[in-house]
């Protein structure tokens, strides 16, 4: 242990190094692209292409957020782009506003439209969201073409003004291009930062596993609405800049086809990163132009090129390069397992075994099936309460009702004297109820530590030191389950048993008052199970109440202070382990005669 840096510092250093490298790359690219239009006199044709590429890229950044980060489809980005463009066009040409005011109005209108669309359709998601956004796109196209008195109809709007900065009008196209590129870099940087922020991690958690995100405290619906709104804002902002660049807009520039183009740009370049968005946009705008020498067949060649890239690089060009980089330089294990102590373990157990959770005549029916039927029990603070029963007896259903995934058919739940029956999963997480899943639900595209950080950032879990503090907390939780050395690995590379431990670490990082564990011992061997037993015993000593489902009676016997037994959704026994495990009905329905000899 001597001399080697603690994992906390290693992870922090790696993050800092990544950030520094990002900055350097960023600065080089920015200087190069900014110098170009200023130093080299460009023809109007090239200026136009570059202006189109930079303003489009801003709109495509929006798709990085909504589709890449949050995993929600948006087939109306051209509509938001059009809202921004028409606001600048009509604002400056018809109403003689300043460019900046018109741009602000356009962005705001896009934001309101995006929020309204998101609020009404994101509860559904999936195909419904695709349908709703296509409809919105179509409606906007019809309005632009047919409300002639306001939008000037199919003829489009001419005479769009460019802005002035501090009294200096930016009339020259190369100067306006510089403005667009500056905006591109600022927005690109912010989008990249967002990906590594608390909000961005929540979005990615929702994308990878919405159910698990809710249970660890992410308000999935709100997160999706925010992502959708931000995407619309960037669409509107990019569209406003676009209108200023070309001094002319018409409805056909913002049709459904263009939405598909935006989507293709995002997917082609790599939807999970703003670099991919910029790359895809540049490619899709420059490629057809550079192929024009092929004359009649140029569109066919262009189409083939796009298809080939999508077939051989399904993650997009940037995604392909990132994967290649990971393969060539695999993640170094974080040396030294001396993680900081978990703050949870410095919490002292409050004396006494007051009632923590009270479950009263709880029922959950699926149609005619009574999965949970009038079950009542109480869980006392600082105890381990086990729930056992045959397969299909309703244990997991009960746990889903306790964590808020299912709304109960009847009955109520009182946690720390407060009714929680009507609370959503993320609200229960905020009250200090954490859980793990029987069929592992991790955020598969994220690293081990990012998975745990999502758990650490729940509402009500105040962590000193912001992001760095949450990273330390996550590492402490990983250290507690013995996985600190794998912090930087991708979770998909872990074995089944280790993935379970990551789930436990994710729950622990949220500093819960009560932890619901669904078969934590499954997939662990005897030695690992004994470690789990030790870990859970230590947790109980620190004021954490544990509610556990497991089929390993040895584990349950070692841990449980109290056992409730379900069969066919009904409680058949409840009490101290010694009496419950000797209960004839429990032996008959669940343990079998040879139980105590056979199960080790």
């Amino acid at each position, binding site marked *: 242990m001597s001399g080697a840096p603690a994992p906390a510092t290693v992870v922090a250093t790696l993050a800092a190094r990544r950030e520094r490298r990002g900055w350097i790359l960023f600065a080089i690219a920015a200087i190069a692209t900014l110098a170009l239009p200023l130093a080299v006199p460009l023809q109007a044709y090239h200026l136009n292409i570059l202006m189109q590429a930079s303003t489009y890229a801003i709109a495509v950044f929006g798709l990085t957020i909504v589709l890449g980060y949050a995993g929600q489809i948006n087939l109306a980005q051209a509509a938001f782009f059009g809202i921004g463009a028409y606001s600048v066009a009509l604002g400056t040409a018809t109403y003689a506003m300043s460019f900046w005011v018109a741009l602000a109005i356009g962005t705001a209108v896009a934001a309101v439209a995006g929020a309204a669309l998101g609020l009404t359709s994101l509860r559904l998601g999936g195909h419904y969201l695709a349908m709703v956004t296509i409809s919105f796109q179509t409606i906007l196209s019809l309005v632009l073409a047919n409300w002639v008195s306001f939008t000037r109809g199919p003829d489009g709007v001419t005479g769009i003004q460019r802005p002035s900065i501090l009294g200096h009008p930016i009339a020259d196209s190369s100067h306006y291009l510089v403005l667009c590129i500056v905006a591109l870099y600022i927005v690109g940087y912010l989008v990249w930062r967002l990906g590594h922020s608390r909000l961005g991690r929540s979005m990615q958690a929702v994308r990878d596993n919405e159910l698990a995100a809710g249970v660890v405290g992410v308000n999935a619906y709100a997160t999706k609405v925010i992502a959708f709104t931000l995407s619309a804002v960037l669409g509107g902002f990019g569209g406003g800049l676009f209108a200023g660049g070309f001094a002319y807009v018409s409805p056909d520039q913002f049709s459904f086809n263009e939405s598909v183009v935006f989507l293709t740009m995002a997917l082609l370049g790599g939807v999970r990163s703003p670099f991919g968005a910029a790359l895809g946009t540049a490619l899709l705008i420059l490629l057809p132009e550079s192929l024009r020498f092929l004359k009649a067949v140029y569109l066919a060649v262009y189409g083939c090129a796009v298809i080939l890239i999508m077939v051989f690089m399904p993650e997009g060009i940037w995604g392909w390069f990132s994967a290649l980089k990971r393969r060539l330089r695999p993640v170094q294990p974080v040396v030294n397992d001396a993680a900081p102590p978990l703050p949870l373990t410095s919490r002292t157990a409050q004396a006494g075994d007051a009632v923590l959770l009270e479950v009263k005549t709880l029922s959950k029916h699926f149609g005619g099936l009574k999965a949970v039927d009038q079950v009542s029990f109480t869980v006392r603070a600082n105890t381990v309460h086990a729930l056992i029963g045959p*397969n299909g007896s309703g244990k997991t259903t009960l746990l889903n009702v306790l964590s808020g995934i299912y709304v109960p058919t009847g009955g109520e739940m009182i946690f720390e004297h407060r009714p929680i029956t009507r609370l959503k999963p993320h609200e229960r997480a905020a009250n200090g109820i954490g859980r793990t899943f*029987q*069929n592992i639900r991790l955020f598969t595209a994220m690293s081990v530590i990012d998975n745990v950080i999502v758990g650490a950032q729940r509402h009500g879990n105040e962590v000193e030191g912001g992001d760095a503090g949450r990273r330390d907390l996550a590492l402490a939780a990983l250290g507690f389950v013995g996985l600190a050395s794998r912090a930087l690995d991708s979770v998909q590379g872990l074995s089944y*048993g*280790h993935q379970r431990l990551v789930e436990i670490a994710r729950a622990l990082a949220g500093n819960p008052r009560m932890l619901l564990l669904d078969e934590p011992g499954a997939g662990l*061997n005897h030695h*690992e199970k004994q470690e789990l037993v030790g870990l859970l015993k230590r947790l109980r000593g620190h004021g954490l109440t544990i509610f556990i489902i497991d*089929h390993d009676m040895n584990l349950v016997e070692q841990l449980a202070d109290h056992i409730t037994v379900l069969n066919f959704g009904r409680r058949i026994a409840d009490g101290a382990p010694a009496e419950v495990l000797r209960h004839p009905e429990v032996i008959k329905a669940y343990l079998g005669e040879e139980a105590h000899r*056979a199960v080790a």
Partner: protein
Amino acid sequence: MPLLELDSVVVAYGKVEALRGLTLQVEEGEIIALLGSNGAGKSTTLRSISGLVEPRSGTLRFADRALARLGPESIVRLGIAHVPEGRRVFPGLTVRENIVLGASNRRRAPKAEVAADLERMFATFPELRPFADALGWTLSGGQQQMVAIARGLMSRPRLLMLDEPSLGLAPLIVQQVFRVIADIRANGTTVLLVEQNAHMALSIADRGYVLETGRLVVQGKPAELWNNEDVRAAYLGGRVTSAA
């Protein structure tokens, strides 16, 4: 001539080597237990035999045929059935359909024969019978595990590979599953068993292999493994009946 033979098999995921030159033999009619901690390479061994991962080097032979580059579908037809961990029940199919799908490698199997086998599965897992027409996703985790095992048995394999069959099953059902495994062998099927419940696994196995970080560390008969101090400490544990 062993039924299954692995010689110096290396499997790597990217740069991480999951198996580092594994050699093992399974004789016809044996039950072999594969033990080891998480990440030791047990599941990877099964995946390389069933063709789900391509080994980087080494050879795999089954019934005197090389398995290299055969692909999972052809390997199933040779008579190797793999019941992976994590259930993988088809959520949109009924329990009956899920189980019958396991027989899809048996070409031109008479319908009556498949129906009889299906009936045998319901006799083996009577808990499933009431759910014969329920959709896969509506089952509880343990019930899905039973469906996955039944599906594997429907292919009437020469070699049945089970990855943690007891995972998530109630003690009563675990006993039943292990009885079923012993019955399967009695009918002539060879069984390769990955199992964390080492007590149960060794109680029915003829031989056991213990893996650590992709390598074979110990092999032997159950009695020999029982008496090996290291193995006991890591995978079997003392008898913790009244202690703690």
